[in-house]
């Protein structure tokens, strides 16, 4: 709690005046010599408890009335929720701002987004009431602490601007805790502003456990959650999932085929008009809408035969969140989808090569080469989009390991299959265990991740037939990666190691027919390889569709297409748009999960933040109420109530019939 007239609090001892007057008054009672003490003592004895309680209550009411008056005159400021204010002033205030695209949901009346509202309210609170010596901002996009001089600066900082990114709330909290530990903060208040989107909060993340443990070790941190849990019932969002350019027969030119996903919250129109901009030329079309999440395949846009490369944008009618009304795409002639298979023998490499050379998308060239382990030096690392490695892992300090590392860092994929012989090396934090003979061949793959990643269900929702594989022997995978499949005895069969944008996939099921039926059954094998290849292609292609993020434009000098504006410095890559750097095109869009309207409820929040000293203030976009309010009016009302209660307690009792009787008798 803060006070605008702090000096008035010096008058607080005046609240004791009623007690002092009472004590003096007790000493100044008129003294009467009395004969009928026996009745007086009876009356006093019977009335003792009630009398004392009443006296105490009267005194308490008088003291309270004075206290309320003094507090009212000192003009206290409290946060929107009175309990928040009871914590006292903090040495440092950390502002953790969720800058995800979903925070751009805007109140129609005020024109303010949730992010802008949060920034304003927090700035207002810091300006008026919850002052502290140091104010630090950490935003979800950059996760870098920035010290703020004045609360009024908050609204003008680039770090509080809109982004098309997805927030990593566990990472944001970790950044705040790291800062608190590094700066040895004794008494800090942390304001976290977020719309509680499940995709941003990642409740399944393993980071929460360590966050809770850290929170228990940092009891001086007081967490204030300014949340915006209300949704936008009529909001529409669009994303471009894939772009293909196809030459039309004859001289009729070419067309772009777009795979779109449209999400809407609640009921909306049956048909949706949308605009398509390709290389600056805008066309308007209409699509029928069914359900709240609709995938539209092969939306065709005619382009000239000479337009082999360029950029485009899908535009929805403006609604409450402008950030999800646009989706950018880029296109360019595709290079051959080249893959390299490094294997111990040609026999094992054969099914791999066959699958990787199969044409999946018409018009695309698929090339795959076998390279023996002894000739790894001949691999053209720049041309390859996928490397399949069926051999012993190279030593961590070897040249091969360095090449593989750079390959994955560039965003492409390496798919590792188990070597036949022993292998004690470790790469990307993952290693092979020894071969293990399966207890039974059927249903050895007991669980795999079906919602995302490389083993996810197919587009029509069907699971990959991994359970039908016959497995005679396998090599379990151990390490720090994300487990994507498990065997019947719980061992990790498929694991992904994260390295920057790319991924290193370890599959413990060998394509060797003597070990598994992976190659023979084909379906899962084919999907596995081509999904890995597609990921590599998207990373290595000239035209790339990326999620917006701080590293999205970090590898070159990028020029924004179709717009003169360009973000500066660290803010590069945080905005959706189409960019060009030499021959390369890159479209940045908000992450797919940002369209998911699911939010944490209070129970889930309480579970996640168990051990945190936190309070929640719910807000709404555009809401103008300050987080810090003057409450002198409430105090005056309370003073009035205390005086009223005192007056009621002081009221004389109802007329005494015994007294009337004596009077009439007299």
């Amino acid at each position, binding site marked *: 709690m803060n006070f605008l007239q702090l000096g008035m609090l010096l008058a607080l001892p005046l609240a004791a005046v009623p007690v002092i007057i009472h004590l003096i008054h007790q000493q100044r009672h008129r*003294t009467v*010599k009395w004969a009928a003490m026996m009745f007086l003592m009876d*009356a*006093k004895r*019977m009335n003792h408890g009630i*009398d004392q309680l009443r006296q105490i209550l009267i005194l308490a009411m008088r003291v309270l009335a004075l206290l309320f008056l003094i507090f009212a005159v000192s003009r206290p400021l409290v946060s929107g929720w009175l309990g928040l204010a009871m914590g006292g002033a903090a040495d440092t205030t950390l502002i953790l701002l969720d800058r995800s695209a979903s925070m751009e949901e805007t109140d129609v009346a005020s024109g303010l987004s949730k992010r802008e509202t949060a920034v304003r309210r927090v700035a207002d609170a810091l300006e008026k009431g919850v002052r502290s010596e140091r104010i630090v901002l950490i935003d979800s996009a950059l996760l870098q602490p920035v010290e703020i001089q004045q609360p009024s600066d908050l609204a003008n900082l680039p770090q509080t601007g809109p982004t098309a990114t997805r927030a990593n709330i566990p990472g944001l909290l970790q950044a705040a805790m790291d800062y608190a530990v590094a700066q040895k903060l004794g008494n800090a208040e942390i304001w976290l502003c977020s719309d509680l989107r499940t995709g941003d909060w990642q409740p399944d993340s393993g980071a929460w456990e360590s966050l809770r443990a850290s929170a228990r070790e940092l009891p001086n941190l007081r967490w204030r959650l300014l949340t915006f849990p209300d949704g936008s019932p009529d909001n529409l969002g669009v994303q471009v999932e894939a772009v293909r350019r196809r030459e039309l027969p004859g001289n009729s030119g070419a067309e772009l085929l777009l795979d779109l996903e449209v999400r809407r919250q609640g009921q909306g129109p049956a048909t949706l008009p949308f605009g398509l901009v390709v290389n600056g030329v805008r066309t308007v079309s209409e699509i029928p809408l069914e359900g709240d999440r609709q995938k539209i395949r092969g939306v065709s846009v005619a382009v000239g035969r000479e337009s082999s490369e360029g950029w485009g944008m899908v535009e929805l009618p403006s609604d409450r969140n402008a950030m999800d009304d646009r989706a950018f795409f880029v296109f360019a002639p595709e290079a051959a989808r080249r893959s390299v298979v490094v294997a111990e023998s040609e026999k094992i490499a054969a099914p791999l090569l066959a699958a990787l050379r199969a044409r999946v998308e018409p018009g695309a060239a698929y090339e795959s080469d076998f390279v023996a382990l002894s000739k790894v030096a001949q691999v053209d690392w720049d041309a390859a989009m996928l490397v399949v490695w069926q051999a012993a892992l190279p030593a961590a300090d070897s040249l091969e390991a360095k090449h593989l590392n750079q390959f994955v860092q560039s965003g492409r994929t390496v798919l590792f299959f188990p070597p036949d012989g022993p292998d004690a090396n470790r790469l990307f934090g993952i290693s092979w265990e020894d071969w293990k003979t399966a207890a039974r061949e059927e249903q050895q793959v007991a669980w795999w991740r079906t919602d995302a990643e490389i083993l996810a269900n197919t587009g029509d929702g069907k699971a990959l037939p991994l359970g039908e594989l016959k497995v005679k022997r396998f090599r379990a995978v151990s390490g720090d990666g994300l487990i994507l499949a498990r065997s019947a005895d719980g061992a990790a069969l498929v694991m992904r190691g994260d390295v920057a944008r790319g991924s290193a996939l370890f599959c413990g099921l060998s394509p060797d027919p003597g070990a598994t039926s992976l190659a023979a059954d084909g379906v899962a094998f084919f999907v596995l390889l081509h999904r890995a290849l597609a990921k590599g292609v998207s990373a290595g292609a000239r035209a790339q569709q990326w999620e917006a993020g701080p590293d999205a434009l970090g590898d070159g000098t990028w020029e924004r297409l179709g717009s003169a504006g360009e973000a500066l410095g660290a803010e590069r890559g945080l905005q959706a748009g189409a960019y060009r750097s030499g021959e390369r095109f890159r479209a940045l869009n908000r992450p797919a999960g940002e369209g998911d309207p699911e939010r944490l409820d209070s129970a889930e929040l309480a579970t996640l933040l168990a051990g945190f000293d936190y309070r929640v203030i719910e807000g709404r976009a555009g809401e103008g109420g300050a987080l810090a309010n003057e409450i002198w009016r409430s105090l005056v009302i309370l003073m009035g109530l205390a005086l009223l209660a005192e007056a009621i307690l002081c009221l004389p*009792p109802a007329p005494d019939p015994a*007294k009337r009787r*004596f009077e009439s008798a*007299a």
Partner: protein
Amino acid sequence: MAEPSPSSSHDFLDPEILGRLSTIPLDARRGMIGSVSGRHRSPVKGSSLEFAQYRKYVPGDDLRRMDWRAWGRSDRYYIKEFEADTNLRLCLVVDTSGSMNYQAGAIVKLDYARRLAGTLAFLAARQGDAVGLYCAAEGFQKEIPPKRGGAHLKVVLDEMAGMKASGTTGLVAALHEAAEKIKSRALVVIISDLFVEPETLNEAFQHLRFRKHDVAVFHLLEEREIKFDFDRPTRFVDLEGNAALVVDPSLAGRRYRDAMRRYLDEVAVIVRDAAVDYHQVVVEEKYDEVLARFLLGRHTGLKTRR
């Protein structure tokens, strides 16, 4: 016997009031057994002018009291009996406990009691009755057995003039003691605030009643003691000790009045059961009016009974 007259040291006696009240005789409600002839009825037959009854002659009866006319008419011997008139023994029991020091307005309760007792003593002596005085506090402070005569009256009045109220009340014990000490029937007049437990008071009255005494009570109260009309918190100091209580009348007044009402109701039942001539006296009243009411009540009651 010389006519008694108040002296200058007995300023609690007002000659004018004495003169006015002396026209009303002090009567006993029941027969008295006195030592000399007087104006009060006796339970034994005597030689007054008032015919009582006839009874058959038995040998040994005084022949002078034989009704010869009755013998002439009926040829039977009858003895004619007359009422015996005797004197009254007035025993004044004055409560001199500390509570009698209570001052109501201009007058202290003890002074009021002194005036009542002195006037009664004077009136009784004037009509030839014996007067005694018992000052009751913690036991009898003073004890003057009833006697006749102007000299004795002076002793009694002197003692009254010197009465001082102090100590805790011993009224009940004093009444029991008086019941035992006063041998023959007497008019026992108790002047007190009666601030004792009603049960114990009942026992004392019943004891006096058992001894065939005619008991009269002047219950001295003050209007404020009944109404308890204080308007602000007050510190009350006990007159029979030094205990003090700070009481807010707005909180305790109702319960005080309830307790007082219950007490007075109980006293009313007790005096009725013990046939006590009870007079509740609010000391703001003039004492001569109280005494006139007392004397007239007894006189007219006696005539009615006759």
